[in-house]
């Protein structure tokens, strides 16, 4: 059974329909990418999972229906949204503590783990999150998500606006988490080369529908995907 299951999910912003019946699934410990052009519904797909957009249809995690954003977080979904969603006025340390809000017991180990993955956060721990650079903020957003020990990590354009070296650092961490700890990842990316290199499988969205899906290798070999999204 897959960890995350979306069946025929529709979502709308006011009168505008953004998803027209999207079905997809992510297995336990699987790394899956969602590709597509601007406005294809990639961000909305993630928001449908965490419940931050009005939606119809079935969204299940481990067989249990997800309803509210709070509920999704408590069920084990950690969503790093577009724009990262850090608390600009709070310190790095407080942002991390909020990441583990739904958990009980000590989180010392988890903080140490995040600091080991991103040493720069340790150096900035008492600084306001709003004063961090874009790359550091993305690391903080990811670190905060890890504090929840999620079953499923949702990432919205983690590479957006970042220097290539930092993008590599972040994707290395994602690969490591997925490989060593079996955290499932669902990532939305404009940069299809990057996403297909990291993910085992991918879905391609066009105007709110899944048009192609399959293992990354197959998609890379697919003529139209290659031309539209990989650019060669």
């Amino acid at each position, binding site marked *: 059974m897959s960890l995350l299951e979306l069946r025929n999910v529709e979502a709308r912003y006011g009168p505008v329909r953004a998803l027209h019946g999207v079905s997809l699934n992510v297995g336990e410990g699987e790394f899956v990418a969602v590709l597509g052009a601007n406005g294809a519904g990639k961000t909305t797909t993630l928001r449908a999972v965490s419940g931050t957009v009005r939606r119809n249809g079935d969204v299940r995690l481990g067989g249990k229906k997800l309803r*509210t954003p*709070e509920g999704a*977080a408590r069920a084990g979904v950690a*969503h790093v949204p577009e724009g990262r969603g850090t608390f600009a006025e*709070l310190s790095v340390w407080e942002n991390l503590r909020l990441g583990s*809000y*739904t958990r009980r017991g000590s989180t010392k180990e988890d903080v140490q783990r995040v600091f080991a993955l991103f040493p720069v956060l340790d150096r900035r721990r008492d600084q306001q999150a709003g004063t961090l650079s874009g790359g550091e903020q993305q690391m903080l957003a990811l670190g905060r998500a890890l504090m929840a020990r999620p079953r499923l990590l949702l990432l919205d354009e983690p590479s957006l606006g970042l220097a290539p070296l930092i993008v590599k650092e972040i994707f290395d961490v994602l690969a490591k988490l997925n490989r060593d700890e079996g955290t499932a990842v669902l990532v939305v990316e404009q940069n299809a080369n990057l996403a297909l290199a990291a993910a085992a499988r991918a879905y391609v969205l066009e105007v709110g529908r899944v048009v192609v899906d399959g293992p990354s290798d197959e998609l890379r070999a697919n003529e139209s995907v290659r031309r539209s999204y990989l650019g060669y």
Partner: protein
Amino acid sequence: MLASFTWSEFAEQIVSGLADGSVYASLALALVLIYRSTRAINFAQGEMATFSTFIAWSLMNHGLSFWEAFPVVLAISFVGGVAVERVIIRPVEQAPVLTIVIITLGLALLLNGLMYVIWGGGDRPFKGGFSSSTVEVAGAHISIQYIGIIGVLALLVVVLGLFFRYTKLGLALRAAALNPDSSRLVGVRVSWMLALGWGLAALVGAVAGMMVAPLQFLGPNMMQAVLLYAFAAAVLGGLDSPVGAVVGGLILGLTIDLLGRYVGYIGSTLKLPVALLLILVFLFFRPGGLFGSVATRRV
């Protein structure tokens, strides 16, 4: 123009100004707690505090001492504040701020009427928790009650500060006020945080009520002037800053006490206009207050 001046009397005025200021500060703090999370001013804050004080009065009439009644009233006020939010604010949580403000005005009228029905109008003496005698310090007669009021505020500020800074729940309350969307994503139940904020505000207001009642008389309208001073204090300090509320309250208490005593024509009758003038001046020259942030909006 200056009234007669002695240093010992000046010291007494400072203490009484700080005590009045402490009361304004605690009610201002209650206003700020709600303002931060809803951007609405709770016009019922004064009546809520008076209601709590009446509960204390009833408990004391049933044989409890002030300090036995005190924690009971705090607990009742907290639960009452949460209940008020759940029942009358929650249905309009997504509504414009103005709607919420109007609802708090209605709540103020409702509570005021209820107090007349339950306890009747008219003022009655309220025996507080501190001795009404004075101690002599270097020639000045310092009221023990005033010192007690200042001490209670200091304790309240320290406890709230520790709560917001070092507990998980306090952090979640701050997060929910700063960024509700991101708070939901980490699993904070934002709507309940609003209710908790109301509970805390009611509790803090109850402290203000029980501190001010012995200085005046207890009646349904007891907190109405105090609420205006608390507005002034909150605006002075910055409406979204708890530290600002406390500092603003103390500054306001000192200022109007000293002006009232030493500037002959202000006396006690012009204190309230002075407070309103302060609100006006601050809104004009420094809309964010001393510690607050200015909300900017692009048009």
